[in-house]
């Protein structure tokens, strides 16, 4: 019973650990102006030209010495990537063509991944693209929960909520990608709605809910208690209705709150630098969060471009990063450090100097609240399973 339990066996991403994720920021345009969105410079002028995309694919496939991963995920992001579905389609075709021509190991060992707000999901061209690439595609639709919760954050420029325009496409998406999950971002205002939102998403048929609190320094006194309360209520509901068997919520993990060994558990949390993001101009970044439109205070960190290639010196600090070297003393001594996450882009943006080696601890209290909720959930879960 327990071995099949979805909550005990979180879904493993495709090609985990062996894959290079390459993110094409195909446009900075989006129909929405989500309040928590870290892309601060949305506009309808900065879209990728196909020639730039071609040059990028050529570079990536011709430099195996720098990109030696077994497999690749070409990720399309924005703004809203489905606004550029023709371009995305052409890029995917070109990748397949060139990787086949070069007899590249990535041919046949690739996935295309799109994260969308879902508004254009049923568009004819989008559906054609999905049919064409069905065996190699993952699509995530971002929906934040109940209509109330979703419409609080995910709004059009005129302030209207987008829930109705997204939710109408969920059945089609679920039919085409029954195992697909969604990503939920929790900001301050969302805390009171966590339980009902997760349950709502499960009710829509989305069995995998990956959620995290925002990494920015927004959390205030009392937020942690409220957060813990919501998670405990969710835990009670999951236990009472045995939802853990067929549903997954990333807030609950047995690894959360365990002490970490400075040597064994010294990996960097974030994949910045191991992945690569390319903006509309063909400029390379360690990840999307290091692009100019995602930084509030700091200059973008550029790794190179599709014309001149990757500057390996700029990549070295990212690949050398580990947990202990960037963490303050309080994190190193923390007895419940397991599962505490960070975002390298936010670390950099919030750091006191221009470095990626200063970990932001803005989510400290929220993590500890999550630990308490996990400490509440797991003994009850195991007791319930054992009694069975």
């Amino acid at each position, binding site marked *: 019973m327990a071995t099949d339990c979805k909550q005990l066996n979180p879904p493993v991403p495709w090609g985990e650990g062996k894959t290079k994720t390459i993110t094409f920021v195909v446009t900075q345009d989006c129909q929405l102006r989500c309040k928590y969105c870290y892309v601060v410079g949305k506009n309808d002028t900065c879209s990728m030209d196909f020639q730039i995309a071609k040059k990028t694919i050529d570079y990536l496939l011709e430099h195996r010495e720098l990109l030696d991963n077994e497999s690749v995920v070409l990720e399309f992001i924005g703004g809203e990537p489905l606004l550029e579905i023709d371009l995305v389609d052409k890029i995917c075709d070109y990748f397949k063509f060139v990787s086949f021509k070069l007899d590249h190991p990535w041919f046949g060992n690739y996935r295309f991944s799109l994260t969308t707000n879902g508004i254009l999901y049923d568009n004819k061209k989008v559906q054609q693209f999905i049919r064409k690439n069905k065996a190699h595609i993952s699509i995530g639709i971002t929906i934040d929960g109940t209509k109330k919760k979703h419409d609080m954050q995910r709004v059009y420029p005129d302030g209207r909520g987008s829930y109705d325009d997204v939710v109408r496409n969920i059945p089609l998406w679920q039919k085409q990608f029954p195992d697909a999950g969604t990503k939920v971002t929790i900001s301050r205002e969302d805390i009171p709605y966590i339980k009902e939102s997760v349950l709502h998403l499960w009710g829509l048929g989305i069995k995998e809910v990956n959620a995290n609190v925002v990494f920015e320094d927004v959390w205030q006194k009392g937020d942690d208690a409220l957060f813990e309360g919501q998670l405990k209520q969710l835990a009670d509901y999951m236990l009472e209705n045995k939802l853990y068997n067929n549903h997954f919520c990333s807030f609950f993990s047995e690894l959360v709150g365990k002490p970490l060994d400075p040597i064994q558990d010294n990996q960097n949390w974030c994949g910045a630098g191991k992945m690569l993001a390319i903006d509309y101009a063909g400029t390379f970044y360690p990840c999307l969060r290091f692009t100019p439109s995602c930084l509030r205070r700091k200059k973008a960190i550029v790794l190179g471009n599709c014309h001149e290639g990757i500057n390996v*010196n*700029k990549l070295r600090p990212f690949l050398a990063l580990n947990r202990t070297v960037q963490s303050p003393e309080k994190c190193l001594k923390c007895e419940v450090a397991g599962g505490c996450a960070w975002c390298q882009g936010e670390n950099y943006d919030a750091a006191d100097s221009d*470095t990626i080696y200063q970990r932001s601890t803005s989510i400290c209290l929220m993590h500890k609240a999550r630990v308490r909720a996990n400490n509440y959930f797991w003994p009850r879960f195991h007791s319930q399973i054992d009694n069975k």
Partner: protein
Amino acid sequence: MIMHNPPNPTAAGASQTDKKHVLVILDEYASSFCHYVNPKGGSGQSQLISHSTLKKVIEFLKFKYYTPQFLFGNACLPDSYELELSQIEHVRIVPVSHPKAYPNSIIVINPDEYRVPGVLGNISAEVLILRILKQDVARLAEIVTPILDKCKRLNISLVEIEDYNDEDIRQYRKQLDLISKSLANCYKEKQAVEVNCLTDRLMLRQMNNCNAGITHFAIAPDGRFYTCPAFYYCGDSSIGDIEGEDNFPNSHLLDIKYSPICSVCDAFHCKRCVFLNKKLTLEVNTPSWQQCKIAHAERDSSRFLLSMIDWPIPEITYDDPFILVKEKDKSKG
């Protein structure tokens, strides 16, 4: 073992408990003595630190018990400046083309100087710093060998490291091996001379890097503090001033234990230049691949040198070093 070796006062044999050193840039046009380039250097012009600032700097150094190393340009100092300098024990770092010969100064030979015929023939100093352009690396041995008998220590400092490619580093290694052979001959002739990139590693058992910002820092003509002169000349913000302002966030990252790459390395002699780190990788704690490969070419050539020299364990007259302590005690008594 190694004396007058800026900016590395803790080089082989010295310890971390040594007095803190401060590099004082006396002249806006002072020539570089290290990897960095002073964009104003070599123009023959001069713009000295103001006398009032110099006075304050020296008072500060005396108060803090810091040992200054004064960086000279090509101009001679007015008597009033010399008077200030005489107030404190110091070291002078002077370009070879400077009109005055100061005793016990460290002489810097810049690319535009070693290329002038005859300049190298007349040099004599305890410590020489030779700054080499990338385009001259292929003839490094030819430049270095004739000056090995003109100093007790030669610091070779490569300029334009950021432009080095694998082939340049291979060339450098080849030249180091040639210099190693010359050094081995020197030792056979009982002539003791150190060359930083070849002999330092032989005597080190732990990392001994430049340590800018830790064991020394720079004071610029504006009276403000910088991690090292390179940071001043590249327009980086200052890290403090004489009045007590302290603006050096994340300075702990200069410490080797916060460098995931350097902390596992055994090229103990490597300069680990934090300025080049910042310039090339954007992080002070992360070396460029060029810096690492150059340090390892030096490490390998040091091994080659070691294989050529007879470095015996000396014969001794005791079997218990307690005897030495007793004898020392006796001689005191």
